[in-house]
């Protein structure tokens, strides 16, 4: 097993608060890895560090043998890392189709001047076909013209995931993909994530509070508390780990879910 992504000594401070504290972990190619922890543990911050939206105070991030910290945020997706956001990252005033097209922004080659002159529509048309094809493969082609903000919350989350796929990533970062969903929707989403891995060979790093989902689909789990890694291992081990149970016991929501 070789690591696709590896993080070492990663540290991020906000003023006096250390949100991520000397974190080490790695994600093997082809796996679904869970990153869990109580509220405020620093999970989203880790995602923001990997997507280069935040600058770490210390540590290293390596992706496919390259030093990720040498790249600006908009290049991360070109390297093969796409993500979704905890509070929805869809562009509300764009249609679903246009959202998907922003998702494959980096695939466009034509220059600005030809575009302004009305050339380069061939590329645009091919991109549309491709986006519609992807939507169709997930049974969502009817959504294409709908403004993103008018869709139900769960659908928006699914669309955002599809948008991330438009970049043909090797690694997908999912920040709470089933938050706010009911049991049926959650089951569909679980299927969805599995399919992405099985059919497209995409590696997944998943942040999620829904423990049954995490335990069901993850191959490996990393547990954070106060920015530190407190445990790591296969789901069955994590479920029995006393430190993990303790961390979650401190937080009622976590206890109810675990």
């Amino acid at each position, binding site marked *: 097993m070789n690591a696709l992504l590896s993080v070492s000594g990663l540290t991020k401070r906000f003023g006096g608060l250390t949100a991520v504290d000397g974190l080490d972990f790695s994600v093997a190619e082809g796996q679904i890895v869970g990153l869990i922890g109580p509220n405020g543990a620093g999970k989203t911050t880790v995602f923001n560090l990997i*997507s280069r*939206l935040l600058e770490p105070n210390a540590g290293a991030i390596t992706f496919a043998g390259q030093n990720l910290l040498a790249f600006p945020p908009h290049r991360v997706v070109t390297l093969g890392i796409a*993500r979704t956001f905890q509070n929805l990252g*869809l562009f509300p*005033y764009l249609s679903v189709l246009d959202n998907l097209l*922003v998702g494959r922004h980096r695939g466009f080659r034509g220059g600005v001047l030809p*575009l302004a002159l009305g050339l*380069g529509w061939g590329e645009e048309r091919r991109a549309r076909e491709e986006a519609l094809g992807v939507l169709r493969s997930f049974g969502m082609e009817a959504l294409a013209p709908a403004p993103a903000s008018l869709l139900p919350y769960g659908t928006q989350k699914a669309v955002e995931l599809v948008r991330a796929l438009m970049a043909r990533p090797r690694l997908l970062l999912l920040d709470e993909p089933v938050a706010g969903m009911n049991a049926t929707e959650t089951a569909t989403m679980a299927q969805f994530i599995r399919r992405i891995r099985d059919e497209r060979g995409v590696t997944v790093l998943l942040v999620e509070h829904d423990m049954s989902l995490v335990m069901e689909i993850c191959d490996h789990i990393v547990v954070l508390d106060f920015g530190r890694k407190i445990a790591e291992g296969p789901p069955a081990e994590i479920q029995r780990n006393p430190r993990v149970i303790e961390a979650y016991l401190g937080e009622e929501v976590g206890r109810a879910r675990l």
Partner: protein
Amino acid sequence: MRGVLFALLLVGLLAAVPLWAKTYDLYLLSLAAANVIAAVGLALLTGFTGQLSIGNAGFLAIGAYGAALIVKHLGVEFWVAIPLAGLLSGLTGFLLLIPALRLTAIYLAIATLAFGTAVSEALPRWASVTGGYQGMRVPPARFLGLNVQNDVAMFYLALAVTVVMVLLARNLIRSRVGRAFIAIRDKPAAAQACGVSLTRYKALAFFLSALFTGIAGGLYAHVVGYISPSEFGLGKSINLFVMIALGGMASLPGPVLGAVFLTYLPHWLSGIRGLQDVLYGAALIGIVVFMPYGAWGFVRKWTAPDKVARLPRPVRAAAEFVLGRTR
């Protein structure tokens, strides 16, 4: 497709205007044309990319003086002078990129205001070139070796430039560039995660806005024939902002409508002596109250499918034909 049809129809109608219009009408329309280009330029920046600017009159000034000086000293043709003036202005647009990469909202607005103020303060003090406070005469435009001195010819030039600029804007807005602009405006972090470079697209937005506004300035200079610094102050920047806000700033028809409306409003009101400022102010308030998302937002709202569906049958059929929605 229907949109294209209507646009062609509109341009055709405008092209026929000189058949009956008086020279003053043509002058006003040419003025409106310059304002349309400037408003579209501001809409690209503020409406689509979300970068608040209340300093765009600075670009207008650079374009106007640029064009006037280029024609005066180089004697080049209109169709060379206008793009050159636009380019000159476009390049100064990059100056604002430094603050734009760090600032948002009101802070950015003040930085743009500072730019506009700097330009309008510097112009009169550089009197040897700009003619100081008195301003300068703009030599007549040269086109195909002739001096353009009648209003009909100027009107056709203005119309042609406007059609070209609006088409360029339309093409860009519908491409990946327009999508990237909107993405940056609404969710900058998500935009970056999708691979959109903030630096690059903000730079592009400022360049395009300055380019369009500069071209508008060049056109304006030729239309009015005489320019002075006081026309390009904060008042003009705000005027441009009002155009796009009244028309609906995140669309293309919006700034066009807003620019035409605001060009004509003072003219309509000038008949009512003593009351024009009151009516002007009241019009601004009324539009904000009754059309909070601008005229185009208003049109869109009242032509939404569910609204149209409630119309009586024959009217509905007509409306659906016009709107291009046959179900």
